[in-house]
């Protein structure tokens, strides 16, 4: 009992410890569990990186270091549902190798010069396809962005490679650790698709081409799997199927991410994804406020981009804008509220917003436009966990789950709220104060 009192007296003042505590508790805080009703005055106990207990009448074990949570709110750690945090900048795509000369050199004659590098000639060349690349394999534990993300309340990111049409496999990663390996929660998390064309060189050069390419790849993948199975059953006397790492990547993905922005694209991709016969998650979705019924009926989850459409910084103020552009800019932040009311499963993602603090601010715009606080918190915690199939480990404050928490003074989405602590796998972090003059505009 004496020991506990001693420790309790010391704790609030000290910011860094010589030894890591075995068990930590936050006492008498407001706890937003997300799995159930918010507890007005409760305690959360963490041990070995997991939540040991949470409740209003929890007994704190003797060896626990206790944080006084009065005036504080505890939320599950925020999850960025589609991120590039932790991944290195992708290298510029290598120029395609020169095609082999068609005519073999005859003795005495100079060999014909190799042809200039050309783009892909069709789906068989697998352009823009790095589907086998796994984020978990290239994740950098020392990425500076991770600390910024933690300071804003994020404990987890679902990071994906994003360059190319079949960009690669993502991973659910906790945002603190000495090595990437101990940070990975689940991998592969899914295959990221984008509608980027080959940039003027080679196939595909249009969105029609990209769609046809994706369709062919999935047909090839199904055929490849059937061929491999048939060969495995009886290889004797049959030609072996050719190894294709692009198709291996496609086959091992538990789900696929498909981009949509406008209502027309949502409608198009809902129909297209049923052709792929694989679990699909849409991402983007700014015009989804017009597609709520369509999405609800399909049951397909949507990752909503928090980079709300803005007028370009350098846009000519005198140039007239169309009604469509104006409406989208005005109504896009209302999308999450509309989706929540229609029962569509959705989560938020950062979409390349530089400062993770701005990511949370962007959620506030959705709250102002009609999204309830509870639904907003859910969209950054339990919803992404459910979408990626890790809701049994993350996303709520429940016994047995990973101890990822964010502790704030004030409501999470309030402008004046401070993040006091962030726990990642039970390890405590305290956000460093932001440098002054960060938001000032130039006076000249």
């Amino acid at each position, binding site marked *: 009992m004496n020991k506990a009192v001693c420790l309790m007296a010391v704790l609030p003042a000290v910011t860094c410890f010589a030894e890591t505590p075995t068990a930590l508790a936050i006492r008498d805080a407001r706890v937003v569990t997300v799995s159930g009703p918010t507890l007005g005055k409760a305690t959360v106990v963490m041990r070995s990186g997991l939540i040991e207990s949470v409740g209003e009448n929890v007994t704190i074990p003797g060896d626990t270091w206790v944080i006084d949570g009065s005036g504080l709110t505890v939320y599950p750690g925020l999850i960025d549902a589609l991120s590039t945090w932790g991944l290195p900048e992708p290298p510029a795509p290598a120029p395609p190798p020169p095609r082999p000369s068609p005519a073999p050199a005859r003795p005495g004659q100079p060999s014909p010069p190799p042809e200039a590098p050309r783009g892909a000639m069709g789906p068989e060349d697998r352009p823009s396809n790095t589907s086998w690349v796994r984020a978990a394999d290239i994740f950098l534990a020392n990425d500076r962005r991770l600390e910024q993300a933690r300071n804003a309340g994020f404990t987890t990111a679902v990071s994906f490679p994003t360059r190319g049409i079949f960009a690669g496999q993502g991973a659910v990663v906790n945002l603190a650790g000495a090595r990437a390996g101990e940070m990975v929660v689940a991998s592969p998390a899914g295959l990221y698709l984008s509608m980027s064309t080959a940039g003027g060189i080679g196939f595909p050069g249009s969105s029609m081409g990209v769609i046809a390419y994706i369709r062919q790849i999935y047909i090839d993948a199904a055929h490849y799997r059937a061929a491999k199975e048939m060969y495995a059953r009886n290889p004797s006397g049959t030609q072996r199927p050719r190894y294709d790492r692009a198709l291996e990547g496609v086959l091992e993905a538990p789900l696929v991410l498909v981009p949509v922005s406008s209502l027309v694209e949502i409608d198009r991709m809902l129909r297209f994804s049923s052709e792929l016969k694989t679990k699909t998650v849409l991402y983007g979705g700014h015009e989804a406020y017009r597609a709520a019924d369509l999405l609800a009926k399909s049951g397909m989850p949507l990752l909503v981009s928090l980079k709300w459409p803005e007028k370009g910084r350098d846009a000519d103020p005198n140039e007239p804008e169309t009604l469509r552009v104006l409406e989208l800019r005005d109504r896009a932040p209302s999308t999450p509220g509309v989706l929540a009311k229609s029962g569509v499963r959705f989560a938020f993602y950062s979409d390349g917003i530089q400062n993770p603090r701005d990511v949370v601010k962007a959620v506030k715009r959705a709250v102002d436009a009609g999204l309830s606080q509870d639904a907003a918190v859910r969209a950054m915690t339990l919803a992404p966990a459910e979408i990626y199939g890790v809701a049994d480990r993350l996303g709520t404050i429940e016994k047995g789950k990973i101890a990822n928490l964010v502790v704030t003074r004030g409501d999470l989405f309030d402008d004046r709220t401070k993040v006091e602590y962030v726990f990642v796998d039970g390890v405590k972090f305290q956000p460093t104060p932001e440098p002054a*003059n960060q938001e000032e505009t130039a006076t000249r």
Partner: protein
Amino acid sequence: MKRLVPILALAAASLTGAPATVIQNATILTVTKGTFQGSIVVEDGKIKEAGPKVLVPPGATIIDAGGQFVMPGIIDCHSHIAADSINEGSVSVSSMVGIEDVIDAEDIDIYRALAGGVTTVNVLHGSANSIGGKCAVIKTRWGKDARELLFEGAKPGIKFALGENVTRRGSGRYPATRMGVEDVVRQAFTDAKLYQKSWQDWESAGKAKGELAPRRDLKLEPLVEVLEGRRFVHAHGYRADELLMLMRVAEDFGFRIRTLQHVLEGYKIAKEIAAHGAGASTFSDWWSYKVEAFDAIPYNAAIMMRKGVLVSLNSDSAELMRHLNTEAAKTMRYGGLTEDEALSLITINPAKQLDVDKRVGSIEAGKDADLVIYDKHPLSNYAKVLKVMLDGEIYFERDRDMSARAAQAAHKKALIERARQQERRAREEMKKNAPSRRPI
């Protein structure tokens, strides 16, 4: 029993759904069955009756078209509206792509086409390559989604192209010459024949032996459909020599070109086109915008028609498609076509070319109620579209469009004002939150 019959008849009438509509007292240009003063009865999306005197069903909505003109909805056989991408020009054979995958149901050009009297559109892949992508036939059902725009039951098509657009020098893509174009087409169909055989062999023998089916090749599948007559070829071409080349290639492989598009030198080879059985879809009087368009003449459509070719006029332009009626009228001046012949170039003829003539293209009982009401004779330069009916519903009304403009402008102004207020508020917030600067 006697009393029940009329009640049952009334009940039956209301069971069919929407009440009937009657367009009354107009000059009706049926295109195929003459022109007369009369009325049209529309029920369940179809033309029920059209004649000088019609039976008006009880409860029908009456559209008084006194002094006005009604013609069948215009059919544009060559257009690139309503699609998010037009060309997959990276490779010479891009038959694996399709317009159907990228239909943009909210393209304002659909509405504008509707306002120009167009009710059916053949949306084609562009002319960047020898064998282009698959095409889609749509109706200008403004407000419906991409699937509902499609003309149900229309036979699928594919776009081929010849000449200058295809043989662009410096692109590094084969072919760079017209001879190369022929080779590309021949090679593609040779590959398609082999592919077709591999599937036939599997169906007849391999399947039973438990062999894996051949890998589906989305590029060759549409070409096999062409060989088997299940997909129409619409081929863009200008010069007589290349058009003859393509028809010969088609005949070598055992299929027919459905329509030649642009075909500005068609008048030189009208007999050959007629003998092959291809239709021709051309411009009224465009010429010399490219070297290969130098020999175009405005009598092209008329000459080909007189030689037995099924001719239509198209727009290949979101702007031109809004006045195809006057394009058609030009053939009366250049070529001496009659009114009905001129109108047929943009109605029943393209319908036949697309094989949808059982459904659209003329005002006849049983056909879709795709009707356009003009305030003057449609072949007049002064004619304006007043109303357009599609599948029996009014999809465009000039009065309604004009009166809605004020409200739309006010709505836009309100949005701009609201955005400005938000910007102002955000700037004030930033100034408030930013720490004050201390003078150095």
